[in-house]
């Protein structure tokens, strides 16, 4: 009981995850600022923002559905954190390895978006409703390329379980390089999931104030922000585990450092993509995803299926 509690709440559970999420947010904001020739925030800024949000009053609008309004952020944080527990941090297994946990992780990572939709919809405010509709439309667009590209290396490895995928790629050195096009597709699709430019349409500040999060304030908003940070770390870790599964046979501490380095690389790439593009309109985004992203993901799937026949 003690080991499980420690794993869930401290390492690599909530406490470690919060710290990692805040660190990820700091890297993102600092790199974003530096790319724009600005200074960027000091290292404790995300923590300070979180503390400030938690110390403020949470206003629940009169028209909103109180239960769903307050529960939605908690579900978001819980599902993102649970997704993280299955991802291999050091070595070949995550803390909680299930059979077929790649699919579990992907579904768990879909829940934050659904809770954003629910929170926005049940806020019953004009801007939140618009944001919720956009979030759901965007969900249909990016989920297909994301799923397809993440499942492609799993197809090659012949298993849906993350630990077995890691073992497969550990035994076939350098085979992960064939999945790099899928990595690029997954990065772009992950931008959609995390609602970052060019796909930050659901929370377009200049159009619909803050989208789904318009009516949120105080503690509830703090939970949502933390959930988004944790989702970014979990998504980036998933990508690192599936597409960059090298060096997993190294000793424990070195493996952990390598994991952090991979996480840093993925977060840096996400930030770079955030800096370079303007925001797309929802119709342009859907058409882009179906016309270019999904076919690219399917190409990767076909490639991996073809290789499966060759590689034993």
């Amino acid at each position: 009981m003690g080991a499980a509690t420690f794993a869930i709440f401290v390492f690599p559970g909530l406490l470690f995850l919060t710290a990692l999420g805040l660190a990820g947010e700091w890297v993102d904001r600092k790199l974003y600022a530096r790319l724009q020739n600005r200074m960027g925030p000091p290292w404790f800024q995300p923590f300070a923002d979180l503390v400030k949000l938690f110390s403020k009053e949470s206003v629940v609008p009169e028209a909103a559905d109180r239960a769903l309004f307050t529960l939605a952020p908690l579900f978001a944080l819980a599902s993102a954190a649970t997704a993280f527990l299955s991802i291999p941090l050091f070595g070949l297994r995550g803390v909680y390895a299930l059979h077929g946990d790649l699919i579990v992780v992907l579904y768990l990572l879909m829940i934050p978006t659904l809770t954003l939709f629910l929170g926005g919809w049940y806020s019953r405010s004009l801007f939140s409703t618009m944001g919720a509709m956009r979030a759901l439309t965007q969900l249909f667009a990016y989920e297909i390329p994301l799923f397809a590209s993440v499942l492609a290396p799993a197809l090659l490895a012949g298993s849906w379980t993350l630990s077995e995928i890691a073992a497969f790629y550990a035994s076939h050195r350098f085979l992960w390089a064939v999945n790099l096009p899928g990595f690029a597709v997954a990065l772009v699709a992950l931008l959609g999931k995390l609602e970052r430019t060019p796909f930050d349409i659901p929370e377009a500040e200049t159009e619909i104030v803050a989208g789904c999060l318009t009516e949120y304030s105080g503690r509830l908003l703090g939970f949502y922000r933390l959930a988004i940070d944790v989702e970014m770390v979990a998504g980036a870790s998933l990508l690192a585990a599936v597409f960059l599964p090298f060096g997993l046979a190294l000793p424990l501490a070195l493996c952990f450092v390598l994991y952090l380095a991979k996480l840093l690389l993925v977060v840096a790439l996400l930030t770079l993509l955030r800096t370079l593009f303007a925001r797309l309109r929802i119709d342009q985004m859907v058409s882009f995803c179906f016309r270019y992203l999904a076919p690219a993901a399917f190409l990767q799937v076909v490639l991996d299926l073809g290789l499966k026949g060759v590689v034993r």
Partner: protein
Amino acid sequence: MKRKPFAWPGKIIDFAIASLFKRPATVRYPAEPLPMPERFRGMLLYFASQCTGCKLCMRDCPAEAITIRKVGERRYEAVVDRGRCIMCAQCVDVCLKKALAISPEVELAQTERDLLRVVFHEELLNRDDAKAP
């Protein structure tokens, strides 16, 4: 409708990567001082020894920020409301005796409105420690 070939986005990338290695454009004010150029219009100064009490400055001030008071035979003092002053320096230009000057000092904020109303008494002023216009 003719479909254009796929154009790779992100042309700003060379700008962006170059900015990583440049010094940030942000000035760390107030840790770093930020002096204004010489001609900058900041704080208004008044020299009672030059003033003849013609009150042209009062007439021309767009914000009614300056009041000249007589305190004796050919002796005057000025009350400048720095909160109302728009730092246009019209009073400086119109004064025939060069009794007014404007310096580039811009850190004039106070915590109370009364502190912004400055009285230039005659005996407190020393011509040497202020820049001549």
